């Protein structure tokens, strides 16, 4: 086995070259390059973590915004609802008032018209009575020759008219 057979003759050179090459590896690559690559990875990890954190924050802000927007929307809607409700009530009240007023007007008109009709009817009746009384007075005078006073004739006629 050359590893054992040659060990006495070659250990010096092997150790020398190993220490030299491994020393270069350690100082140039281990201490020089390795931490830089580590730094790159760490910086990237930090960047990713930061970005994720920022995204999370933005998400929270967006949620808050949406919530406030929703609340505002809700408020606006209820406000509008109230406004609609109020104007509706106001309009219906005004309509009611107008209706009542016109009803009163109509009733008044009807009442005057009825009173007028009544007055005219009674007037007409009086006319009929006086005419009938005169007719009755004339008829009595012509038929029986008896003289009937105007008042008695009127009284009789009224009674007759009343019975139909």
């Amino acid at each position: 086995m050359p590893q054992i057979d040659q060990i006495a003759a070659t250990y010096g050179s092997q150790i020398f070259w190993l220490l030299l090459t491994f020393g270069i590896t350690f100082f140039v690559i281990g201490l020089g390059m390795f931490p830089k690559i580590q730094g790159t990875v760490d910086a990237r990890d930090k960047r990713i973590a930061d970005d994720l954190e920022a995204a999370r924050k933005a998400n929270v802000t967006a949620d808050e915004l949406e919530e406030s927007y929703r609340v505002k929307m809700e408020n606006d809607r209820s406000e509008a609802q109230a406004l609609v409700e109020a104007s509706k009530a106001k309009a219906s009240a005004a309509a009611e008032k107008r209706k009542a007023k016109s009803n009163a007007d109509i009733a008044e008109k009807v009442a005057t018209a009825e009173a007028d009709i009544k007055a005219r009817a009674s007037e007409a009746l009086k006319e009929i009575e006086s005419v009938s009384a005169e007719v009755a007075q004339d008829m009595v005078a012509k038929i029986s020759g008896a003289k009937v006073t105007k008042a008695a004739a009127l009284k009789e006629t009224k009674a007759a008219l009343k019975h139909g």
Partner: protein
Amino acid sequence: MATEEGKIDPMYQFEVQTIFEGFSLGGQQIALTNSAVWMMVSVVALWLFMLGGMKRELVPGRWQMMVEGFTGFIDNMMDANIGPAGRKYAPYVFSLFMFILFSNVLGLLPVGVLGLHPFTVTSHLTVTGVLAILSFSIVLIVGFAKHKLHFFSLFIPDGTPLPMIPFIFIVELLSFLVRPFSLALRLFVAMTAGHILLKVLAGFVINSSNAGAGYGVLVGIPSFALMIGISALELLVAVVQAYVFALLTSLYINDAENLH
């Protein structure tokens, strides 16, 4: 690969060959060897790989994603095994993991097709031993620097009855001291065994084909099919062994960092 006529030596791949004589240091010849070249290839390949991940874009491309996958993997491992204090050891464990991973995988590449001689750096006990000792030293230094002599309480599990403490202490101390050896041997053995197995099977294919078409069909083709499966398995072992080395290192550092 063939050393003698008709004989294929599966151990030849582990031989360290001198390319350039180099210099002498404390009686040892520090030569530029194939092992050293493959270590450099590993480092350069790793550097190129990491360079692709250095664009530092916010949205990573494929290559950057791959590199960040590896760094994230080690980061998670340190975090899971040691906790927040583990971050400062991540560069070391990352270097360890990537160096072993690249050495293992590069040693498996079929560069022999191009006439090159593939060599797995981590199949040498010297290399895995040095890496294990490095990890173990870090554990010792961190442990004693952080907890002073209180570090020895690591060897006494919670709730040990008083008369048992000396025995438990010795057992735990031994298991602690065995750690660098098990760490080094595990990687060395896993790499060596797999490569020997592949070379032996490859030798079957060549030798049986040389012996005749009938042998080639009878022995060579099943061996080749087995090699394909074992190559996939070896690729897995290369990754798993690098992972195990890094994982155990992080567990040992956790002992030193947090005691129990």
